[in-house]
């Protein structure tokens, strides 16, 4: 039967081992936290410092012709401006200062 002293030593060793493991795990956690912190970009968001979150409330894709067809006759010149062919002849509409090219 082990003596009380032996049990005491055993517990002591186990306690030390237990503490070593704890310290080791704590070090790992601290290391991970510091790496995570170092790798996280600064919160340099503008305005209200809000994260760039958004909720999409609906999307639509519409041809410009829907609007152009509704332009009143008295604004025909405006309509014609929109309908000029582009420099590359591919786009049916363009602006004098914007010549979008196809992707």
């Amino acid at each position: 039967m082990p003596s009380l002293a032996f049990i005491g030593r055993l517990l002591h060793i186990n306690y030390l081992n237990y503490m070593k493991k704890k310290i080791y795990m704590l070090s790992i956690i601290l290391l991970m936290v510091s790496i995570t912190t170092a790798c996280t970009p600064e919160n340099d968001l503008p305005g209200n410092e809000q994260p760039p979150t958004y909720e999409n409330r609906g999307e639509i894709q519409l041809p410009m012709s829907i609007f152009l067809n509704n332009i009143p006759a008295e604004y025909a010149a405006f309509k014609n401006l929109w309908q000029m062919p582009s420099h590359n002849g591919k786009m049916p509409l363009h602006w004098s200062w914007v010549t979008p090219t196809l992707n």
Partner: protein
Amino acid sequence: MGNPDIKLGFRKTAYLYPSTDVDGNPITLSAIAFWLGYFDNGVWNDLKPDNICLMEHYTITSDAEAPSNTYPLEMFITGNTLTIMPDYIGYGITKELPHPYLNHDVCAINSIDALTAGYALFNDRNRHGMSDGWKLYLAGASQGASNAIAIHKYLDTHPELATKWNFASSNCSSGPYNPVATIDKYLADGKVVYPVVFPLVMKNMFDSYPEIMDGFTEEMAYSQNYLTVKSEIDNMLAGKQHNTDAINKVFMDKVRTTVDSTLADNEIYLTDILSPEILDKESPICKALYQCLEKNDLTKGWTPIHPMKLHYSSQDMVVPQENSFAILEAFGNNIVTLEQSSIPADHTTTCSLWMVELFSKGF
């Protein structure tokens, strides 16, 4: 003419984003983001925007005119850009709230937040991204112009933001940059053509600056004439069902009682709308109102870094040209370029002409 199978079009998305209300509390607001693309045999393809435009909308009083509820005119003038148009507080998702008219600081923060969220949305939706070397341009007409300059102020007083967003310049038309100069001109003329501005301004000043307006009531600012229709107009503004033309018509039909040969059909004397007390610049209530207005004076308290181009008309009776002159006088012609409207025209026509200018010449 071109390839008939390819049709240019818009991709427009309405979205919600987190921001801050007039009391500094968190609030969810709405906005739209749109960019160009084309249908190739019916299949949508995104284009790669050249720049970003943060476009501030003009004064509205009906929710149906809010960007997220319609196709605002400004959609058609910004060319190949990613354009962000925020609904102001009081419109869109927050239509139940009062609109903080001329509260520039709040609007600037809301708009920058809309830009941040809109840009994130764009990056999630358009796989092409932005063109190399893209810049941020601010734009707007009327109330949108002063809001754009408020954002300009915000960016130039937060240089790290201006750099982050590649801020280039502002291009605006007919904005009340200096509310004091605007009201001064109204008082000097003794008449106005856009009377809805008074309940809009009064409501916001009482809501936004209770510490300054403490001891006064809105009723003290108005004439007996106006008080007979005040609840009707308050309900129209709160209901967000009527546009500014409809509200101005109530003024002309029910508040305008003094008529003479010098008064045009679309004009109304201030004495028909406002109380003698507030028309006296030495009265306590008038001084308090001016103190509120000065808090929204965009010609003071900052030094712009980036250029601004301001379009105006000498015949604009809604937002007098003195506003643009005040900006030039404050910041000088190294920063400010004034551009007089090609036709001396009223406020609405001047703003429309600016849109044509922006459409045809770019930023």
